[in-house]
């Protein structure tokens, strides 16, 4: 997946986020921060901060493992804090996440099913040694936006009738954003709401084995026109 495609997916995800408190996962979701409307969306990070600011100037920050005390959820990358920021311990951080207080999360996905199941943390046949905070994030956030490439690097579909990878959570995905399309889950059913003009409905269907309907508000967009974030 090229850089432009990742940036497009991030940009399109940002359009979904017009206000509130959001947690961005690792990977494409991290890029979403650059496209958010300034001042309207506050970012939470599970290592204990509400009000994440931009990355510091790399020339001005020295990452000393002995003394560094402000990082993102990678545990090692320095960040800054905005003027309304607060710090807290992991218990409170996961109270925010699991307790249903986050307005949305954007999370990377390996697979999503037509019932909104998400698989994002493990691949069958490999030792499963890490889950992190993904399960708590997805179980609690009011909206779960899956930011993902439409197909796997091998060209296999990732939006399926059922996930065959280990699940992160069942029935929790609200929106899927890929380089070709946006799907939304409404009252338990999956709808195609947006598609880029590079593909036809038939081609999209071929890449998307999950059962979905074309929404009444469906529209075709040009990728280059999905520019600035929505300012509501």
């Amino acid at each position, binding site marked *: 997946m090229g850089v432009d495609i990742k940036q497009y997916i991030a940009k399109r995800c940002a359009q979904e986020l017009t206000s509130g408190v959001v947690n961005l996962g690792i990977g494409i979701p991290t890029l979403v921060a650059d496209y958010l409307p300034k001042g309207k969306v506050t970012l939470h*990070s*599970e*290592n*204990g*901060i509400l009000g994440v600011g931009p990355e510091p100037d790399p020339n001005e920050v020295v*990452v000393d*493992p*002995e003394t*560094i*005390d*402000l*990082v993102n959820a*990678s*545990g*090692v990358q320095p960040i800054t*804090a905005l003027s309304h920021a607060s*710090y*807290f*311990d*992991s*218990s409170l*951080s*996961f109270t925010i*996440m*699991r307790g249903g207080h986050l307005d949305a999360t954007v999370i990377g996905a390996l697979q999503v099913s037509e019932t909104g199941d998400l698989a994002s943390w*493990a691949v069958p046949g490999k*030792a*499963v*040694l*890490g*889950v*992190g*905070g*993904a*399960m*708590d994030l997805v*179980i*609690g956030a009011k909206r779960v936006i899956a930011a993902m490439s439409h197909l796997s690097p091998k060209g296999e579909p990732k939006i399926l009738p059922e996930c065959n990878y*280990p*699940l*992160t*959570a*069942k029935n929790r995905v609200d929106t899927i954003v890929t380089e070709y399309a946006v799907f939304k889950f409404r009252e338990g059913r999956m709808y195609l709401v947006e598609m880029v003009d590079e593909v036809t409905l038939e081609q999209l269907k071929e890449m998307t084995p999950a059962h979905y309907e074309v929404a009444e508000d469906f529209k075709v967009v040009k990728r280059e026109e999905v520019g600035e974030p929505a300012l509501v």
Partner: protein
Amino acid sequence: MMNGTIDQIQTGVEFLNADEAIQRIPEGASIMVGGFGFPGMPRHLSKALVKRTELDQLTLIMNSLGSVSTLNALFEQNRIKKVIGSFFSTNKELVVAYQEGKVEIELLPQGTFTEAIRLGGAGIPAFFTPTAAGTLLAEGKESRIINGREHVLEQSLTADVAIIRAHKADKAGNLVYKKTAQNFNPAMATAAKLTIVEVDEIVEIGELDPDSIVTPFIFVDIVVKREEV
């Protein structure tokens, strides 16, 4: 008058160096270790733990272990029986030890991990959470529908020892933290029989604003000041 002057206050908290503090850890102990990546990781206590080579058959309860952790030596030296935490994928030594069957890994979602420690310290032995319901990590665990939603029964966590890091301690043993270096440290302080904390600075009683104290001295047994490198 019941309350003494500052010089008369004794809380029983001890002030030792890292090696002396680590000497107090019993063999085969379960040890909680604070930190999320670099911030809040008790690096000096970890070094002292690695140095005390007769301590083995240990259980480590820590969220994650990065590829550059001081504690990796414990796996190379085959001193760890089990680890409990949420993210170990990126640690080569641990992955190898696991594949060779030398170490057991119990994986918990991070929020379940931190809540298990909080409740362990609070005297509540188990809890239902919606996290992980219907997933691989719920297999073998009791589940129950509560308010129409599936929940998993998780056991709380306590330990023989917690080694944690804070920013400052006063001479009573009260602790304050900095920024994202709190993470698991305050909860771990409450959940172990012996809590050893490494701090940047020790100040006089009265110098910490009581409103700012996150961990009251009752949860602290030993304070170690980090030596200047």
